[in-house]
């Protein structure tokens, strides 16, 4: 189907990519600018904002906190999401199908509603807001993602493989460990990396469920409200680079491989 515009596909693609990556490049550019103000023309290049960041105790603290939350919540999400995906693959019962729909609800509801309702519950039960409350909230967002990713892998799974292992002498547990698990591992890993990145970037849920401590996004949020703080540019650039890397690695390991094969 050709419109009268020759070369339009690449125009669309190029233009859109430029648009999508624009903010990324600009932030990165200005993070090296030796000026308190983000703007052209660039007077000089410097890395002092990064150096400032390195010496910034708040950055260290909230960075560490975010990483801890992300790591632990991802592990928990994998531990509870993967078995659920296996259960959904094994059973076609009405109950299981209903549960599969229920598991996806956290990804569909506006984050604000989720955060607010969790906060309301904690308040009602007089639960103090700590590391554990933030963690619980993050798992709520990650576990369904793991469920979906592993579930998608299981849909195309060849169940005659563990059957073959059993006929060859493996018990059910051995067949799972030696055949099913290694084949699921790439999907689980890809999902985990995505979940980690999403947890690091989580803003709304963290906003409502942290007590005194701060996550990295919350730190950026509070710094942003003070207008001209160039270290935010540096923080933002670092952030973007790291999550971009995570996305690339996740794709490498699983994910788009299926889309590629189909196209």
């Amino acid at each position, binding site marked *: 189907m050709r419109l009268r515009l020759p070369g339009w596909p690449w125009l669309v693609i190029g233009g*859109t990519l430029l648009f*999508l990556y624009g903010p*990324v490049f600009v932030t990165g550019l200005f993070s090296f600018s030796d000026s308190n103000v983000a703007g052209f023309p660039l007077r000089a290049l410097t890395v002092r904002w990064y150096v400032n960041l390195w010496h910034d105790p708040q950055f260290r603290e909230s960075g560490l906190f975010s990483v801890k939350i992300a790591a632990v919540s991802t592990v928990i999400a994998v531990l509870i999401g993967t078995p*659920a995906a296996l259960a959904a693959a094994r059973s076609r019962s009405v109950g299981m199908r209903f549960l599969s729909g229920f598991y996806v609800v956290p990804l569909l509801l506006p984050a*604000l*509603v989720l955060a607010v*309702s969790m906060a309301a519950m904690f308040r009602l039960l007089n639960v103090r807001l700590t590391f554990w409350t933030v963690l619980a909230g993050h798992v709520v967002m990650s576990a369904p993602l793991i469920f979906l990713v592993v579930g998608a892998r299981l849909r195309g799974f060849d169940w005659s493989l563990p059957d073959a292992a059993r006929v060859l002498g493996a018990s059910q547990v051995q067949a799972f460990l030696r055949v099913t698990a290694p084949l699921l591992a790439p999907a689980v890993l890809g999902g985990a990396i995505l979940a980690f990145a999403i947890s690091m970037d989580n803003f709304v849920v963290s906003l409502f469920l942290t007590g005194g401590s701060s996550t990295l996004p919350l730190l950026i*949020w509070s710094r942003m409200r003070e207008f001209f703080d160039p270290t935010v540019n540096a923080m933002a650039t670092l952030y973007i680079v790291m999550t971009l890397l995570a996305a690339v690695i996740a*794709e490498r390991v699983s994910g788009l491989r299926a889309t590629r094969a189909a196209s």
Partner: protein
Amino acid sequence: MTSVAGDPVAPAAVLRNRTHRRSIARLLSTVALAAPLTVWLAALVAVPLGILVVYSFWRVVAFQIVHVYSLANYRASFSRVFLRALENSLVIGLSTAAITCVIAFALAWAVRFRVRRGKNLLLLAIVAASAGSYLARIYAWRGILGAQGAINSFLTAVHLTSGPLGFLIFNRGAVIVALVNLFVPYAFLPIYANLLAVDPEILEAGRVLGAGPIRNLRHVALPLTAVGLATSFVYVLIFATGDFAIPTFLGGPTGLPAAQVIQSQFGEIFNWPLGAAMAIVYLLVLGGISALLAVYAGRRSRRLAR
């Protein structure tokens, strides 16, 4: 499981029990696998939502939350402030969803049907664009659209303008631009996945049978991609409407987003029950619109195909 060796003929009842036992064991193991996630989500999503509903009926008296039941909060939700905020958010959400889907559709079409080599790299680039801090992105837009931001300083430096253009930021347009930028990669995926299932020969058949490019798009391509489009549209609508950081930072005085109004009930204003009621109203409105859209898309795709 040992065999019953030496036993001439086991009674049918014993055999049936064994099969019965095996299927019970299987059922139990499935339940055990699904239990952790179910319990977690029930405790942290279902129960809290229920509690939110309960909260919405309570009241605040002298900065204390009082457990008295009334519909007062719901009446208060329909105040001008909240309704205007809701309308604002919905307008932003619908515009964002529409623009995002058009761009994502064009992009997906181009990649699916017109790109021969380097497809994998392109796909990676598009998906990777969704990575990157949400907040940092907002900050970046300020740096691009602001009075001393990239665009303005560039234009001034090359003497195209004499002063900063004020209309670039702190209005609805800026909010929509930032939201579209955020959501295009996410909207791209369902649409692209849908297009993968479309055989290019079907489109060629449409042309051969006499449909021009626009007609072909409308009568052949769109019905086939309705599902992906609808999914993306509803998805972007939900998240764009509910966003509160972007409108807060880039929207300026043109109007509070509903999310901000709700959030302030839980923050400074300390009227949790009212906030709860607003959240519920918001959920219902959004849910209703999404459901209507889904039904409309389903019916439309069938009609268009005729």
